[in-house]
């Protein structure tokens, strides 16, 4: 039995742990064996403290024996993207800048995981400072798509998606600024949710673009995603954009039996691979057969989303990454005789090419003489995009598109052309600009390569998205799938 533990869902593992037919230690030992066999091929984890996770598992088993189980994730391992703080563990953001940083504190979500009984299970690779769509921008290592090791896993939460698809862990945390949970989830055949902006505290998430960043759950099934979301989504006064208790909708709520699904056909034409179009049509057919109404909606400003995003995100990044000056933490250059040289050399040595590119772009769009033409216009475009999405979502329950225009591309294929890579995020970016919840669910294959579909809902409609995802998942064989490695 133990060699199949890595294939089980978090919900089933939790049931076995509660029934006493499984211990957390036996589960963790099985996953460590899997890690030793498979992680060298996939490169999902950048760090796993084996002695520490065994100690956490033993402590969980002891709590259970004493009848002091903490919560719904008691004894379940959750792997964490390397930009979310766990006290005493590395917090590298896959950057040379933070290569030696050990976090002195816990993120809010980490505190929530601890109080739910979870095992904090290792650090996951990512694009440096979450900037990228392929995890090729990691300064630490490459991560490969478990379904085809010559291809990228997506990004920036590529380590999270690859770890799930490779059966290395049942649950993972990602972060999503423009699609960084959903796009790798789609490419690796797993489920990823970007919550409504403000639902999950960003305290302890290393900032990239603060008005867009959200932490979210990733899993091999919608049900597991929901289990993890319920632990994460709690008020936190340390993030002033995090909803307090009085502004939260209860989770879960009953979803309407027959959803109205909006399809922005005008937005789907360009650059979408035929197999992705075909998968999308079969998803629509399925929902139609379930009695859902499929309605065409118009999102005329959707084409502005990519430029708007890259202005807003890089502007915020250039400001947020100003803190890496070699003074308080992170890399400090030894080649400096005065403070300005220390800052300049530390940044130049510590940041990789994509981070430098985005800092330069963000600096430009905020600079005197250009801020009105770029940054302020982007904020106005953001208002327009948000209004159009909210308008459409007043008429339908969810908007449905592919998650990504094409299946996972080859490692290195787009590395020299940043613009092509930025266009990967065309379907996912609007949810970040508008602060809306969005879910990617596996729905098909192009050969071995997974294809996902994307649901966007009104603010705090996560329960509706999850219910719609579960409906599809229950009728198809895509949940719980793992690559043969």
């Amino acid at each position, binding site marked *: 039995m133990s060699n199949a533990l890595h294939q089980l869902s978090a919900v089933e593992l939790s049931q076995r742990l509660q029934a006493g037919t499984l211990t957390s230690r036996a589960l963790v030992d099985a996953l460590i064996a899997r890690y030793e066999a498979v992680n060298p091929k996939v490169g999902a984890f950048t760090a796993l403290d084996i002695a520490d996770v065994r100690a956490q598992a033993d402590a969980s088993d002891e709590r259970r024996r004493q009848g002091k189980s903490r919560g719904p994730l008691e004894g379940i391992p959750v792997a964490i993207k390397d930009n979310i703080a766990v006290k005493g563990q590395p917090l590298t953001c896959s950057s040379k800048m933070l290569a030696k940083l*050990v976090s*002195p*504190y816990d993120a809010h979500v980490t505190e929530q995981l601890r109080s739910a009984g979870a095992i904090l299970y290792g650090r996951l690779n990512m694009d440096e400072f979450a900037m990228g769509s392929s995890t090729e921008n990691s300064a630490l290592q490459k991560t490969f798509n478990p379904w085809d090791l010559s291809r990228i896993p997506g990004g920036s939460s590529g380590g999270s998606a690859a770890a799930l698809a490779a059966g290395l862990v049942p649950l993972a945390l990602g972060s999503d600024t423009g699609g960084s949970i959903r796009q790798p989830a789609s490419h690796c055949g797993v489920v990823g949710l970007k919550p409504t*902006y403000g639902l999950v505290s960003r305290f302890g998430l290393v900032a990239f673009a603060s*008005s867009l960043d959200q932490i979210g759950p990733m899993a091999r099934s919608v049900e597991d995603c929901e289990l993890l979301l319920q632990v994460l989504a709690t008020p936190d006064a340390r993030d*002033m*954009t995090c909803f*307090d208790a009085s502004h939260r909708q209860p989770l879960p709520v009953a979803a309407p039996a027959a959803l109205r699904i909006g399809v922005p056909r005008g937005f789907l034409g360009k650059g979408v691979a035929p197999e992705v179009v075909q998968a999308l049509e079969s998803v629509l057919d399925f929902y139609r057969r379930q009695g859902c109404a499929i309605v065409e909606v118009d999102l005329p*400003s959707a*084409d*502005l989303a990519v*430029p*708007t995003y*890259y*202005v807003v995100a890089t502007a915020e990044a250039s400001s947020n990454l100003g803190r890496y*000056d*070699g*003074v*308080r*933490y*992170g*890399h*400090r250059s030894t080649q400096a*005789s*005065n*403070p*300005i040289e*220390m*800052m*300049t*050399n530390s*940044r*130049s040595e510590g*940041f990789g090419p994509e981070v*430098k*590119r985005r*800092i*330069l*772009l963000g*600096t*430009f769009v905020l*600079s005197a*003489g250009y801020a009105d*033409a*770029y940054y302020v*216009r*982007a*904020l*106005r*475009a*953001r*208002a*327009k995009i*948000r*209004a159009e999405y909210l308008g459409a979502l007043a008429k339908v329950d969810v908007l449905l598109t592919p998650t990504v225009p094409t299946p996972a591309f080859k490692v290195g294929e787009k590395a020299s052309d*940043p*613009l092509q890579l*930025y266009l990967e995020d065309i379907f996912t970016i609007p949810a970040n600009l*508008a*602060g809306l919840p969005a879910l990617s669910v596996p729905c098909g294959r192009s050969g071995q390569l997974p294809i996902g579909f994307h649901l966007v809902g009104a603010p705090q409609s996560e329960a509706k998205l999850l219910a719609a995802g579960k409906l599809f998942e229950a009728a198809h064989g895509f949940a719980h799938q793992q690559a043969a490695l």
Partner: protein
Amino acid sequence: MAEGFDIEHLAKLARLQLTPEEKVLYAQQLNSVLGHFRALAEADLPAQVDDALVVSEAALRADNPGPTLGAEAVTRVAPASRDGQISVPRVVDDEA
């Protein structure tokens, strides 16, 4: 829209030192990306910026002192420290 794009000035503002090769590469890549941004210049946009990030007074927590990390934890992650303080290169030159 991208007239006056000066990679050296930008690098200075961003406190980045670029090699001659990097200057050429980044200038070319940023120009390509900024070309894609032209749609923003041509779009018919509302006069108002997005208000999604306007935080109401009610959302702000009380400004009360709370626990902090403490000097030991802070200096442990600092690149260099001495006597419980973070040390940096000399800021002011010696003057006679």
